[in-house]
């Protein structure tokens, strides 16, 4: 009997999908390296300006592409993975709700700013426990795998988190963009294993490039954050938490990682055929299944496109406010990456 979890888990198991990419491996590698170098250059040169333009252009579309990719990975029937997905969706919903409510409660004077680190630490702890639970549940589905090690690692992370909750959150800000590279790696491993070595060689250049950026920018003068928007961007990159580090270096590094993140979701994965034809819902198991929901999925994707347009409108009308709202709500997509990445491991 075939394992239920292996049925309808997306298009990558189908052999004919392997030849769908629009480019060759060499062209793909050249594009990755060129895009990475270009991103590093512009992020180092004009960090604040590039941050504004990048978020304006790509924040909404990358969420839409990501949502579509996750829908493709969502099995039509959960089967044995029902509990995994229940915990995953409950965690995404509750943690996002809690994250959004934190600033709301703060501005409503429900608690003072002195308790803010404790609230952040509690939220981070819950997130670590949630991801650990998902890892253990995923481990139980895979034979000959003992993933018990995740518990000591999770507790160690919680310990670091309680020592400095703000720095732990800042770590998430910097690590999250790199998760997209992991997705690309797992996708290539399943669909184009012959490309994997080339991709990983390109990936090995990333620490070198980051090291070079940090070395070059570490002695730069701090960015002039004399208006509300620039101040928010430098704060988001950790300028207040790391006062002895050049804010130019922090913002440039963050913008560079964000550019890579957006590049993977909007360009790299669609380029290798990972998202299928974006206008068609046939590649989405939940829509294509005989007992699926094609109209619901189609409506969801159209609403997503309207959301992207609404975000662009919001950025045009009041960039600072929209950026604040976006980065608060966007925590949902950060959390959603965890279960879907685990499904690919």
């Amino acid at each position, binding site marked *: 009997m075939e394992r239920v979890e292996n049925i309808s888990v997306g298009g990558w198991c189908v052999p004919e999908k392997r030849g769908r990419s629009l480019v060759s491996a060499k062209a793909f590698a050249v594009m990755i390296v060129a895009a990475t170098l270009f991103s590093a250059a512009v992020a180092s040169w004009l960090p604040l300006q590039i941050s504004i333009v990048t978020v304006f252009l790509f924040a909404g579309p990358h969420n839409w592409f990501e949502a579509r990719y996750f829908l493709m990975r969502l099995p039509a029937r959960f089967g044995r993975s029902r509990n995994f997905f229940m915990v995953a969706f409950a965690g995404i919903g509750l943690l996002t709700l809690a994250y959004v409510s934190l600033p709301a409660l703060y501005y409503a004077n429900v608690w003072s700013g002195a308790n803010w680190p404790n609230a952040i630490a509690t939220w981070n702890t819950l997130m670590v426990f949630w991801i650990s639970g998902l890892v253990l549940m995923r481990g139980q589905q895979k034979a000959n795998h003992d993933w018990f090690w995740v518990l*000591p690692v999770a507790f160690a992370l*919680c310990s670091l988190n309680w020592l400095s909750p703000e*720095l732990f959150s800042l770590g998430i800000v910097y690590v999250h963009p790199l998760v997209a590279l992991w997705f690309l790696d797992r996708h290539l491993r399943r669909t184009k294993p012959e490309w994997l070595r080339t991709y990983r060689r390109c990936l090995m250049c990333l620490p070198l490039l980051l090291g070079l950026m940090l070395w070059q920018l570490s002695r730069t003068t701090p960015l002039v954050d004399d208006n509300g928007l620039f101040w928010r961007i430098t704060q988001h990159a950790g300028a207040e938490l790391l006062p002895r580090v050049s804010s130019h270096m922090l913002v440039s590094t963050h913008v560079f990682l964000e550019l890579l993140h957006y590049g993977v979701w909007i360009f790299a994965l669609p380029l290798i055929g990972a998202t299928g034809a974006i206008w068609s819902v046939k590649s989405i198991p939940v829509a294509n299944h005989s007992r699926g929901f094609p109209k619901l999925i189609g409506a969801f994707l159209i609403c997503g496109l309207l959301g992207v347009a609404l975000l662009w409108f919001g950025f045009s009308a009041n960039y600072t406010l929209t950026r604040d709202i976006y980065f608060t709500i966007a925590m949902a997509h950060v959390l959603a990456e965890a279960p879907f990445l685990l499904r690919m491991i």
Partner: protein
Amino acid sequence: MKRTLIATAAILALLASALYAFGDIARPKPTPKSLLYSGLTITTDPKAYEARLVISESTLKNLQEAGARNGGGAALTQQIMHSSNRTIMAGLFMFLAISFAGIWFARSNQRRNTKAIAAVLLVAVIFGIGTIMVRANAGPPGYIRWQNLPQALKDGKETSGGVSIEVVPGDDNMKLIIPMRKSSKPGEE
């Protein structure tokens, strides 16, 4: 299973009550706040009538920014030291991490896991040694640079070294404190 759950709940309740324990009753005395670490050069000028403390525009700007930041938030170490609840929680989780790592170690008999554990221990040892070196000031201590100051002043030469700019309460004059160690010459002791 039920007994284990009850025992675990009891232990967690006991540990949770520890959050309200305040061990540091005595309030620490206020200490000077270090705002900035910069460089200092001491030299003589035979034509000058007044002593001068020359600060570059860049350093002054950094000093102003550091002062502004200092009013907003404390340093990381200060935050940790002044939050006993968070320190207790961090300690609790570190205890659990080490405990579960021990259980994992006991459970795993496979050769691959042993190698992984050995690798983790090696990394931990390297980090530990690195931490000890950093914390122990493995580099030459700052006062070494100032040891030749008296002779350099006599010779009219420059002496450069690090300086920590501190802010203290009160309205006293600026004070430049140079770390000098008494050199014990033969026959002095």
